[in-house]
C-alpha cells in the first residue's frame, strides 16, 4: 500500500512517499508564491524518485501552513501532530520535539504512542523562527546553509542584546562595523535564537528524549547552541529533520487507510 504526505511550509515544501511501512522517496524544494503549483511540483519530484505515478498513491495527507491549498490530498493534519508522529516513528523513544520552521517554532511533548500531550508555539514574533536566521544571513551576506559551519570557527562569540529581529539586525550591522569576526557574530546569533527557543520549550517542561526537526536542525551551530541553552542533551534526528512533517503526514495517511497506525 502506497501513501504520501505533503508539507507546504513558508520557505520550503516537502513530500514523502511510503510503501508498506518504508520510506520510498522524499523530496524538498524551495517555496514559491503559488501553493497549488508548489504542492504539485514537490509531489512530482518525490514520485519521480520513487519511480511511480500519482494514481498509485492510495491516500495522502497535507500539512504545513499551505495545507489547505494542496489540490490532490485526501485530508490535512496539523504540523504539530505531524512533526510529533514523524519524529517518533524514526526514533521511538522521543518524547519531545523542537521544530523550528521558516516562520514559526514549536515545542511538542508526546506520549509513547506519538500523540501530542502538550505543545507551545510561536508564530507571532519572528525572533526565534527560521526567519531570524534568514534575515541575519542577508545582513551578513552569507548563505543560510553556511551559517552553521561558519559558527563552528567562533573563538569569542558576541552577545546580542536585542531580541527583536529588526533591532538585532541593526545591532549586528554595528558589530560588523566594529570589525567583529563573522564566526563570532553568527555564533552569537545562534545563542540568542537558541535562548528564545529554549524558553518556549521550557514553558511546557522538558522531557527526555528530545530531538530537533525542521530545516534549522541541520545547522550544527544552532543544534549545539540549543543544547547549551536547554542544559540537557538533544538527540540528533536519525533522518533528514526537514522531512519530519511530511513523514508524519504520510503516517497519518497510512493510518487513515488501515485504520491502525501500526499497520
Amino acid at each position, binding site marked *: 500500500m502506497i501513501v504520501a504526505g505533503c508539507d507546504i511550509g513558508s520557505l520550503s515544501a516537502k513530500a514523502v512517499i511510503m510503501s508498506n511501512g518504508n520510506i520510498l522517496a522524499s523530496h524538498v524544494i524551495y517555496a514559491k508564491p503559488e501553493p497549488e503549483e508548489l504542492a504539485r511540483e514537490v509531489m512530482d519530484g518525490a514520485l519521480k524518485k520513487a519511480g511511480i505515478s500519482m494514481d498509485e498513491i492510495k491516500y495522502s495527507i497535507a500539512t504545513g501552513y499551505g495545507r489547505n491549498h494542496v489540490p490532490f490530498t485526501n485530508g490535512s493534519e496539523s504540523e504539530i501532530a505531524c512533526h510529533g508522529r514523524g519524529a517518533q516513528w524514526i526514533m521511538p523513544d522521543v518524547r519531545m520535539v523542537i521544530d523550528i520552521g521558516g*516562520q514559526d517554532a514549536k515545542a511538542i511533548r508526546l506520549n509513547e504512542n506519538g500523540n501530542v500531550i502538550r505543545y507551545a508555539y510561536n508564530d*507571532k*514574533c*519572528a525572533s526565534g523562527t527560521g*526567519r531570524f536566521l534568514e*534575515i541575519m544571513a542577508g545582513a551578513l551576506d552569507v548563505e543560510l546553509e553556511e551559517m552553521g559551519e561558519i559558527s563552528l570557527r567562533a573563538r569569542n562569540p558576541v552577545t546580542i542584546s*536585542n*531580541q*527583536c*529581529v*529588526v*533591532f538585532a539586525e541593526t545591532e549586528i550591522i554595528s558589530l560588523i*562595523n566594529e570589525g567583529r569576526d563573522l564566526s563570532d557574530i553568527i555564533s552569537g546569533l545562534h545563542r540568542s535564537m537558541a535562548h528564545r527557543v529554549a524558553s518556549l520549550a521550557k514553558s511546557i517542561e522538558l522531557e527526555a528524549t528530545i530531538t530537533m526537526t525542521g530545516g534549522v536542525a541541520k545547522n550544527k551551530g544552532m543544534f549545539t547552541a540549543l543544547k547549551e541553552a536547554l542544559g540537557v542533551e538533544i538527540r540528533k534526528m536519525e533522518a533528514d529533520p526537514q522531512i519530519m512533517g511530511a513523514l508524519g503526514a504520510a503516517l497519518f495517511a497510512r493510518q487513515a487507510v488501515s485504520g491502525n497506525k501500526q499497520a
Partner: protein
Amino acid sequence: MIVAGCDVGSLTSKAVVLNSSRILGQVIIKSGFKPEESAHQVMEEALSRAGLSMKDIGFCVGTGYGRDRIPFVGKSVSEIACHAKGAQLLMPTARTVIDIGGQDCKAIKLDAKGNVVKFFTNDKCAAGTGRFLEVMAKILGISLDELGTLSRQARSPLSLASTCTVWAQAEVIHHLNARKSKADIASAVNQAMAGRVAILARSVGIEKDVCMTGGVAKNTGVVSALEKQLNVNIRRLRTDPQIVGALGAAVFAKQRMEGA
C-alpha cells in the same frame, strides 16, 4: 538666565536654547554614529540660531539614549522625565504624554508640576516604535511624512493582522503585489502602529489632557488613528513635538540654576 537641553536619540539629535520660558533656538539633526559629535553639531546650530555661543549657556542638561556621552552637559536626565517636563511647559493641563521615538515608545502619566507619576515603555519590540513606520515607508517607497498624509486619501480600508514588524512587512508586500493602493496600505500601517501604542497607553491609564511628543506625533495618520482607538482627543502642542525631550532637559537646566 540662558540654559540649554540636548537630546541625543537613536535617529535624531535635538537641542533647545531657553531663556526663562522662551525658546531662543531649536534644531533637529540626524544622529551620526558618534553621540559626542551629534551633540556638538546640534548644539552649535541651536546656539547660532539663538545668536549665542557656548559660554552664554548657564547650564545644560542632556537626555536621550546617548545622554551619557554628551561632553558639555552638567547633568543628564532620563528621557521620560524630560518629555513629561517639556510637555508640561507647553501644555500645563497635560496629564498623559505619549512619546514615540525612533526605537521606542513611552506612555507617561504626570502631575500638574510635570513630575512623572507612572510610565510604561517599550524598547524591546520594534512594533509600535518609529522603526516600524520607517520599515514600512521604505517598502512603500515613500517618505515618513508621506506615510501620514497619504493615509488620509485611503478609500477601502485594509488591515494588517501581524504585530511583528517582520511579518507585517510581508503583509505589506503581499498587499502591494495584490495592487492595493498605497494610500490604503499607508492607512493600514498607521492603524497597526496606533493599535500597538494604544495598548501601552491604556496600560498606564489615560487621563486628560493627552498630548503626543516625538517625531511620530507629526504623522497625522497615526495621531487620528490613535484618537479613535483610545476614544480621546489628543491635543496638539504649539511647537514641534520632536523637540519636547530637549525642551524638558532645558527646563531641568533652568530649575538647577534656580536651585529648585
